């Protein structure tokens, strides 16, 4: 039972509650019907409505004294036949749409009980329309007709109800309130079992519906501006406007209200109106009309004029017109309260305005639109597409009707392919929730069933990779007119640039640009781009470690796309496929980038990343896009044979971290796994050998390959929390990247192998598998162990042993950083690490608290009892890796 805020009698409350209860029961039973069931009911209802169209029109005219019999009959036919034509094949039960590609299924859920308020102007047609919609969607409706149209509406409801029940609809599916008051409506609008209010009527009704707090379709008044532009087919326009404005004596709220006519055609148009039976009012007649049919107190139309003939209105006002006058046309000079006829007039009186230009005409149309017609309907007659588009652009109307009658055009299905309706949504401008022509889909809750879809994955690498000793000789295969070698001073001194120069085919103009051995800044980039432009280079060879190759990538980007905004391109992103910024695809020079790596760590020769320093802003800028990937990579160990021991270790550990993180990344795939696993195997085998014997060619070659292969893996699977922490820590305390990685690595393996506090959303992984991946790596390395837990512990131990063997500092404290210093830095460290995008592909989402714990473990290092197996136990499982 609903509360009784309206102060109704108990008897009345019981009656109203009974109506709702009956509708609720009917709706509940109706929910079991199938699509075939409802379609079987709808068709005979439509036929019954068509057969009763004229009788219902006559009843409406007799009761309301509004409109034209023939037009009301036509409206009843449109409300049945045209609406049926639209809904007949629409699915409204069960699955209504399926998008197999996106894995989305839409299912219909009925609303239940709908309270429907219907107007005096289109009483029976609105009832017929809403009955068909309700049955098609398995809803029950309580009708509350305008009191002055109750009898005809009740009859329309009776015809629809009896036909529906006869063909299988549940009893009680439609009811019509007996003579009622606003209190009844108020009570029903607030009733807990009413699911939706569909209010078609005046502003009061619509406002009450929306004010009830219930979901509502409130469709109210309009004020349709019409722009009659000089290029229009004038004969057609005049006939269309007369047809529309006289249809049912102008009672359709989408009908034309003010015609704005271009100056050049104004007189001709008025003459055409007059020739076809319209009366053009003199200034005095316009004045008389204004103060009679518009209420001077409210500025709204007088109800007594609604739906009356032009001759009746003329007689009432005291204007002498010919006996068969169809329309009264009143010239006005402006819009607003000073010009009363510029408002909505639901009778055959049209205001006309003479506009001196297109701009003025459009402004006046906007004024009419804003004088009570926002969101409703507007009409333009023109053959100038630019004018039509401008009109559509400035007018706020749910229906913009082009070169056709406003009222019949807005109803849909006659002059255009809009959805047939008797309820025009007016959007927020009209205080409505929709701008649509209200239709069956507004009578449904549409449920969307979304199946899990796998994100599309990729595996991108440079077009060509040459490896093994003397791979640089392959440069002979690349024809070039002008080549620029970018390298650093140390490599130039070692003679590496000369080795490269000698491998370039004869006849190529070769220049060398030396840049500092540090992360490039904007100045270095600009100088490089200047050199590329100066030499008109068609080939760029980057010879160096990560910083040189990264510099070359950015130089090439700016060389090919001079307008590229590096700061904008560095904007953060969560998913590279959905990122906000797009890298330029147009290229000016089509130069080839060949990367020759001289370290065995970053793998920049195959990655889509480039890091630079923005000194002005004091920040590092990371660019990431596959368009940055070099075209050709040369992995020639001769360039790393003389690499210092410390650099060998640091870059080797960086390589291992890349591979380990790529292996457990949420973007890992069989393609990246194969590379990551192989890189891990190579590092464990060859890094100690290179460490012991730096001149071992085979070991050097394998470590050089390992770095490239690990980079291929992380280019496509990304890295994880280890890198995020190492970036923050390395930057804060000036520790090399490889060394910083080493400090975190055993702790992060143990951390990722544990039960996550928070799982990382990852549609491509069916379950958490990081621990199993680690176990798989342990198996690959032959570390032994019977359970996943044992294997993970063995991997952590093996990693620690490797780091020990390489004599890498094993705790942050061992670097000489005091506890106090570290404690002081911690809030910032944790914040910067959490802001680092690297962890976004980590299998486990790190909490800031967890990052702090991991940092402290790294600070204390081994022996504290907190590393490796002491961290949360791994998820024990015997399941095979999937």
């Amino acid at each position: 039972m609903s509360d009784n805020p309206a102060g109704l009698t108990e008897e009345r409350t019981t009656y109203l509650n009974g109506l709702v209860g009956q509708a609720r029961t009917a709706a509940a039973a109706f929910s079991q019907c199938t699509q075939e069931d409802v379609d079987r009911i709808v068709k005979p209802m439509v036929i019954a409505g068509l057969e009763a169209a004229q009788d219902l029109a006559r009843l409406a005219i007799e009761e309301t004294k509004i409109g034209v019999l023939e037009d009301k009959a036509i409206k009843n036919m449109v409300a049945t036949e045209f609406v049926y034509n639209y809904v007949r094949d629409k699915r409204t039960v069960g699955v209504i749409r399926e998008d197999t590609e996106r894995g989305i299924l839409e299912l219909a859920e009925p609303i239940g009980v709908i309270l429907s308020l219907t107007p005096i102007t289109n009483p029976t047609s609105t009832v017929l329309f809403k009955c068909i919609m309700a049955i098609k969607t398995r809803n029950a409706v309580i009708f509350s007709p305008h009191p002055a149209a109750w009898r005809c509406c009740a009859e329309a409801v009776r015809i629809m109800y009896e036909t529906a029940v006869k063909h299988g609809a549940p009893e009680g599916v439609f009811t019509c309130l007996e003579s009622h008051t606003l209190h009844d409506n108020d009570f029903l609008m607030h009733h807990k079992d009413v699911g939706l209010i569909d209010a078609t009527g005046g502003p009061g009704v619509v406002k009450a519906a929306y004010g009830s707090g219930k979901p509502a379709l409130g469709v109210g008044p309009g004020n349709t501006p019409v722009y009659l532009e000089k290029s229009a087919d004038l004969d057609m326009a005049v006939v269309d406007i007369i047809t529309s404005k006289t249809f049912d004596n102008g009672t359709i709220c989408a009908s034309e209200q003010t015609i704005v006519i271009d100056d050049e055609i104004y007189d001709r148009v008025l003459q055409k109106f007059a020739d076809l039976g319209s009366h053009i009012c003199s200034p005095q007649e316009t004045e008389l009309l204004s103060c009679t049919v518009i209420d001077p107190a409210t500025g709204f139309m007088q109800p007594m004029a609604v739906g009356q003939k032009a001759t009746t209105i003329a007689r009432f006002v005291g204007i002498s017109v010919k006996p068969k006058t169809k329309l009264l046309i009143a010239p006005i000079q402006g819009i607003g309260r000073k010009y009363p006829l510029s408002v909505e007039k639901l009778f055959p009186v049209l205001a006309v305005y003479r506009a001196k230009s297109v701009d003025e005409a459009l402004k006046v149309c906007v004024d009419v639109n804003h004088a009570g017609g926002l969101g409703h309907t507007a009409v333009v007659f023109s053959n100038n597409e630019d004018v039509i588009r401008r009109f559509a652009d400035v007018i706020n109307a749910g229906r913009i009707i082009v070169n056709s009658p406003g009222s019949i055009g807005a109803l849909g299905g006659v002059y255009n392919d809009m959805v047939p309706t008797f309820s025009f949504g007016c959007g927020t401008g009209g205080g409505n929730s929709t701008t649509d022509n209200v239709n069956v889909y507004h009578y449904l809750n549409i449920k969307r069933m979304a199946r899990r879809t796998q994100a599309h994955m990729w595996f991108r690498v440079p077009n060509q990779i040459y490896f093994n000793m003397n791979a640089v000789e392959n440069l002979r295969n690349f024809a070039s007119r002008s080549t620029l070698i970018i390298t650093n001073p140390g490599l130039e001194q070692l003679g590496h640039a000369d080795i490269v120069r000698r491998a370039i085919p004869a006849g190529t103009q070769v220049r060398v640009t030396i840049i500092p051995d540090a992360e490039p800044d904007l100045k270095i980039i600009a100088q490089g781009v200047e050199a590329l432009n100066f030499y008109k280079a068609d080939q760029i060879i980057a010879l160096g470690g990560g910083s040189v190759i990264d510099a070359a990538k950015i130089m090439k980007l700016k060389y090919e796309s001079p307008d590229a905004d590096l700061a904008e391109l560095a904007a953060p992103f969560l998913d590279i496929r959905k990122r906000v910024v797009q890298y330029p695809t147009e290229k000016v020079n089509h130069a080839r980038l060949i990367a020759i790596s001289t370290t065995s760590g970053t793998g920049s020769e195959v990655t889509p990343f480039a890091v630079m320093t923005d000194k002005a802003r004091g920040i590092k800028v990371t660019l990431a896009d596959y368009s940055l990937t070099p075209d050709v990579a040369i992995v020639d160990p001769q360039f790393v044979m003389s690499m210092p021991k410390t650099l060998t270790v640091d870059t080797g550990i960086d390589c291992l971290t890349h591979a380990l993180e790529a292996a457990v990344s949420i973007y890992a795939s069989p393609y990246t796994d194969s590379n990551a696993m192989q890189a891990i195997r190579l590092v464990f085998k060859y890094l100690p050998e290179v460490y012991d014997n730096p001149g071992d060619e085979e070991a050097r070659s394998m470590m050089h390959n390992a770095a490239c292969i690990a980079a291929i893996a992380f280019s496509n699977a990304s890295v994880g929390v280890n890198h995020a922490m190492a970036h923050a820590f390395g930057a804060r305390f000036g520790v090399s990247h490889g060394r910083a990685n080493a400090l975190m690595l055993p702790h992060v393996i143990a951390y990722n192998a544990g039960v996550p506090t928070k799982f990382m959303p990852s549609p491509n992984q069916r379950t958490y598998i990081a621990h199993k991946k680690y176990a798989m790596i342990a198996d690959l390395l032959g570390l032994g162990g019977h359970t996943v837990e044992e294997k993970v512990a063995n991997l952590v131990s093996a990693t620690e042993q490797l780091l020990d063997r390489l004599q890498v500092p094993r705790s942050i404290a061992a670097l000489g950083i005091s506890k106090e210093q570290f404690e002081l830095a911690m809030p910032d460290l944790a914040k910067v690490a959490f802001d680092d995008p690297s962890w976004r592909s980590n299998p486990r989402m790190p909490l800031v608290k967890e990052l702090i714990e991991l940092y402290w473990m790294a600070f204390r290092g081994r022996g504290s009892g907190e590393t490796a197996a002491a961290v949360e136990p791994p998820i024990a499982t015997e399941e095979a890796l999937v």
Partner: protein
Amino acid sequence: MTASNCLLVDGECPDKTLREAIERIIAGFDGELVLNFSDVQYIDPKALRALEDLAEEAERTQVAVVVRGVNVKVYKVLKLARLTSQFSFIN
């Protein structure tokens, strides 16, 4: 539970059995009434109204009504008709 307080609701014409249950309650039935809905695949407004009346009568006379074996589709209809809170359900 004895056979005397358990009614198998007619799947074809559920309102008939439900009216019978109401009569039993009115006649002074005492205890727990079990309505076996396992044959009911569809429930029409008549049967829903009978259930509403039954719920009202059961509440008045403090008879506990248990609905057994109701399928999920019919259960949802009872939910929409706001009847589930007035009965208890067993499988």
